[in-house]
């Protein structure tokens, strides 16, 4: 058993070492795999705030992932076609500036999470899972049947979006961008978890009645957590679209919601780095098992089952004792 903080630093080092090695060995595909892992990790960090810290089992986080993706797709497609999004009393144009796209992705997925959260947080338990799943699927079918943005075929973006001062077409530089964002978000979520807000969220997860009887408005508390959670996953969706230069309704599918949840279960629920380890291991398994057999999902299922039965804290839980942060 090692300290969780030490383990987290080791994980970050590994996450940098792999693409750095691939860069030296000139293996761009490996860098892209690592970038995928980082982006999935970010999506998982978002869900983990709701699911791990808050106990809100959302089976519809693909809605925010897709929303972030389509924010990128819509803005960039208008920009590449020199076709304004809205031309009326005022003008809204597309853009291929990454920072602008990210802001739009974060804001739109936060608003979506506010809407879905406000309705679904009135339920709990299995109903909450079903309602969030239903919302996710609603957006999936909506995206399929919206021909303006590619419908079922999705949207291809031919120009890589821009980030000031960097060449985003260079895999290692784009990896750097994603990695930096992941680190910033991890820092943010760590502070959040330790703040009065995080303690209240965790307390309400463990004992809702207790949180109420000390004067905490549990509904409002969870709604705010849900919005932040959705916004982070939305940002990951925009980066995923940046990486692939392609968005499609698949980003909204329940399979994505399930995958994001798998990262967390593999890595460790409610552990800061749980989704990071989970996403990395998932990408590795997908790559190696996927190469061995088309039915790699069955092996993945078996591994997950073993995890849930024998290693409740996930990989992080196996390696590090949970840190309590008492005392000032």
């Amino acid at each position, binding site marked *: 058993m090692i300290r969780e903080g030490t383990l987290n630093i080791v994980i970050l080092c590994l996450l940098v070492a792999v693409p750095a090695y691939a860069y030296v060995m000139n293996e761009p595909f490996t860098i892209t795999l690592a970038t995928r892992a980082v982006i999935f990790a970010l999506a998982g960090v978002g869900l983990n705030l709701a699911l791990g810290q808050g106990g809100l089992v959302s089976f519809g986080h693909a809605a925010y992932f897709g929303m972030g993706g389509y924010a990128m797709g819509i803005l960039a497609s208008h920009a590449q076609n020199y076709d304004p999004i809205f031309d009326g009393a005022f003008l809204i144009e597309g853009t291929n500036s990454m920072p602008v796209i990210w802001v739009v992705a974060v804001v739109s997925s936060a608003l979506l999470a506010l809407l879905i959260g406000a309705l679904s947080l009135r339920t709990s338990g299995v109903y909450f899972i079903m309602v969030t799943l239903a919302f996710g699927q609603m957006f999936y079918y909506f995206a399929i049947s919206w021909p303006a943005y590619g419908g079922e075929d999705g949207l291809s973006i031919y120009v890589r979006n821009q980030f000031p001062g960097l060449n985003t077409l260079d895999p290692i530089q784009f990896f750097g961008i994603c990695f930096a964002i992941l680190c910033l978000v991890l820092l943010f979520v760590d502070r959040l978890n330790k703040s*009065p807000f995080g303690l209240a969220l965790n*307390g309400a997860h463990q004992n809702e009645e207790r949180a*109420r009887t000390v004067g905490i408005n549990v509904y409002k508390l969870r709604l705010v957590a849900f919005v932040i959670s959705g916004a982070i996953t939305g940002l990951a969706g925009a980066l995923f679209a940046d990486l692939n230069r392609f968005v499609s309704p698949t980003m909204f599918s329940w399979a994505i919601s399930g995958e994001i949840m798998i990262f967390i279960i593999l890595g460790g629920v409610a552990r800061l780095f749980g989704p990071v380890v989970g996403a990395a291991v998932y990408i590795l398994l997908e790559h190696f098992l996927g190469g061995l057999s088309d039915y790699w999902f069955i092996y993945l299922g078996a591994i997950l089952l073993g995890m849930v039965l024998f290693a409740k804290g996930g990989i992080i839980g196996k390696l590090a004792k949970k840190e309590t942060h008492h005392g000032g």
Partner: protein
Amino acid sequence: MADSILRVSDIHKSFGALKASDGITLDLRQGEIHALIGPNGAGKSTLIKQIAGGLRPDSGSVTFLDQDVTRHSVAERARLGLARTFQISALAMDLTVLENAVLGAIGQRGSVFSFFRPAMKNAGLLSQARAALAQVGLEEDEATITAELSHGQRRQLEVAVALTLAPKAFLMDEPMAGMGAEGSKALTRFLQELKHQAPILLVEHDMDAIFACADRISVLVYGKIIATGSVDDIRANPDVRTAYLGEEDAA
């Protein structure tokens, strides 16, 4: 009545055909321990829940600090200073003792939506939490995970969390349950001091404890209060003897 902190007026609550509260009126006055006794299933916990806000009465009203709180949520009543302890401990079991107390301070100060300063490094929250723990004698155990506390210590922590709420009144549902003679005696003495800080509506089965510390007693049977009075009044009341104390003797 001017010194009445909490007042319940003509509360009715039915579960199907069962009248759990059948026109209950009582009040809690400054500086007193008002004990609520009655046989199992009489409706004591149901009444406490309606006062705390977890259950809405079919009719009747609850007034707290001269304010009608009948439609207030649990959280709103708690923020006004209505502090409750549970018949079965309701604590965040994976958190430390200190974290549970800090949770109370967070709710009381309304600082749920402060996102950046670590809660466990916030001097204000910590001193409020530690003062409450010291008052119940749990200051040595602040770093212990709550799940590892003994039954008696959990009951103490329940009271400590209530104390972080800057309480104006306490609702305590069987705080002595399962505590043993020693613990229950100590708690009785503690409640007698505590009542000067805020009055206590006390549900309890331990009659020795009640007779030792209550200023007034109300007897609840089948959802109705059959008598309210001093310890001596209640002991002497023939209705109470047959309806309740008599049953105890026979049992």
